[in-house]
């Protein structure tokens, strides 16, 4: 079985990474290349880099920026934003992307999913679905991050899986930036409807939220804002998951192996003596 994978979603406006709240408020973090580089060093399992302005601005992805990001990235790099043609997909894959993420085109030009899968393999094609809750257990697809459509999310997920999507990245617009945890009702409904991997996204505020996703049967857990708060956010979240029985790879020079991590993803009861020792501990970089 695959282990649990933590995916760093890098929400970008062009080549600036941002914090996102409710798909409407954005705070700048820094250059995408730096965020990708850091996540890579911090032990993330995969990165999804999404340019949320490309479609709205009717422009192509920023291929040069993606090449620069890819050069820092030794884990899979999925790239999305402004992809609606086979040519764009090919150019992205040649620029260094390992997978492409299609969102708007799944509504306006779904044939591109099938063409992409046929040419590059379905494992290269992720379809991203932004969902908003309109009633108890009822979710609709949001177009362009803003406009709710009449398309029901589970039905849309089923359809894209049938026509060639290899994975679904499922975002809850309502939970985005709220730190209230994943919308498990939404995620379970979609996961039950398809046989392809479903990546959860939207709402993570504590390490326990990742665990809740894992215990609900989701092994692909994405977060955007959560990983930007501290350098050890990735390894601490993984340690918390491990302590609670999840299978997850931890491969960073410092693993917090003998320390407890609390629900929030911080060290439980910091030991002053240990922390003092850590200030001057030399960890030799492993040369491969």
């Amino acid at each position: 079985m695959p282990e649990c994978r933590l995916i760093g979603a890098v929400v970008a406006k062009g080549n600036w990474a941002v914090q996102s709240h409710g798909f409407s408020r954005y705070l700048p973090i820094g250059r995408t290349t730096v965020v990708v580089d850091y996540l890579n060093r911090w032990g993330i399992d995969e990165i999804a880099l999404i340019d949320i302005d490309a479609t709205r601005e009717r422009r192509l992805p920023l291929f040069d920026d993606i090449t620069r990001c890819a050069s820092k990235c030794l884990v899979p790099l999925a790239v999305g934003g402004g992809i609606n043609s086979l040519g764009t997909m090919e150019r992205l894959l040649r620029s260094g992307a390992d997978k492409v993420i299609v969102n708007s085109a799944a509504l306006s030009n779904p044939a591109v999913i099938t063409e992409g899968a046929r040419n590059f393999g379905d494992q290269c094609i992720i379809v991203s679905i932004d969902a908003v809750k309109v009633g108890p257990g009822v979710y609709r697809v949001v177009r362009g991050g803003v406009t709710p459509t009449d398309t029901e999310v589970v039905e849309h997920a089923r359809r894209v899986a049938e026509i060639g999507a290899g994975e679904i990245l499922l975002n809850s617009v309502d939970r985005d930036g709220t730190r209230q945890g994943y919308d498990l009702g939404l995620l379970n409904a979609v996961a039950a409807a398809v046989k392809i991997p479903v990546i959860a996204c939207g709402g993570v505020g504590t390490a326990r939220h990742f665990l809740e996703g894992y215990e609900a049967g989701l092994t692909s857990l994405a977060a955007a804002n959560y990983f930007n708060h501290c350098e050890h956010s990735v390894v601490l979240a993984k340690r918390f998951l491990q302590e609670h029985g999840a299978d997850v790879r931890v491969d960073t020079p410092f693993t917090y192996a003998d320390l407890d991590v609390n629900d929030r993803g911080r060290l439980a009861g910091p030991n002053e003596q240990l922390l003092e020792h850590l200030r001057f501990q030399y960890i030799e970089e492993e040369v491969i």
Partner: protein
Amino acid sequence: MRPVTITIIDYGMGNLVSVSNALSALHVPHSISNRAADIDAADALILPGVGAFGAAMENLRRLQVIDTLRRNVVDKGKPVLGICLGMQLFAETSEEKGHFEGLGWIRGNVRALRPGPTVRIPHVGWTEIVRQRGDCLYGRLGEHPSFYFDHSFHLECPLDLVTAKFCHGGEFVAAIRKDNLFGVQFHPEKSHRNGLKLLRNFVNQATALQGNLQHA
């Protein structure tokens, strides 16, 4: 010993940039090519692969590179690392989207992975491999290292070729070795430090063998 030259075979199917980035991270000189001159000049080859088997074989035929590969790999015994679809191409046949013939360098066939109640296809994500026997590819890696997989088809082949397996609703081949043929179902170029170590081991093996390809 001089540094080895690795050539990554470009046949239009594969995340060449990722493999190249990984070799660059290791400071290993390499070229990306499908020209006979470059393949003949290389000390070792990497055959990446992302996409469909039939299209891959069609591309190899169209680029007229199969004979060059056979001359270098089968006749001259140069080390070659097949990654994902690249490894699958070593086999005799594949049932991916039809019925296709592969390079036939090893006995074996490529078959579909089947979904199940808790088994999603494609098999995507980090999975531990379980070593079946030692191999130079696994130096400095633990007993059950994790690597990144992303595939819907797997290789069935004789057990004596298998150096590692993985589990995904059943046991499947993760890696093979036959003389100078190395194959991995996972993506070392996308497997962070474990992947870099494996690639380094491959390069070290190629370095040790240069000029003397008569090996077991």
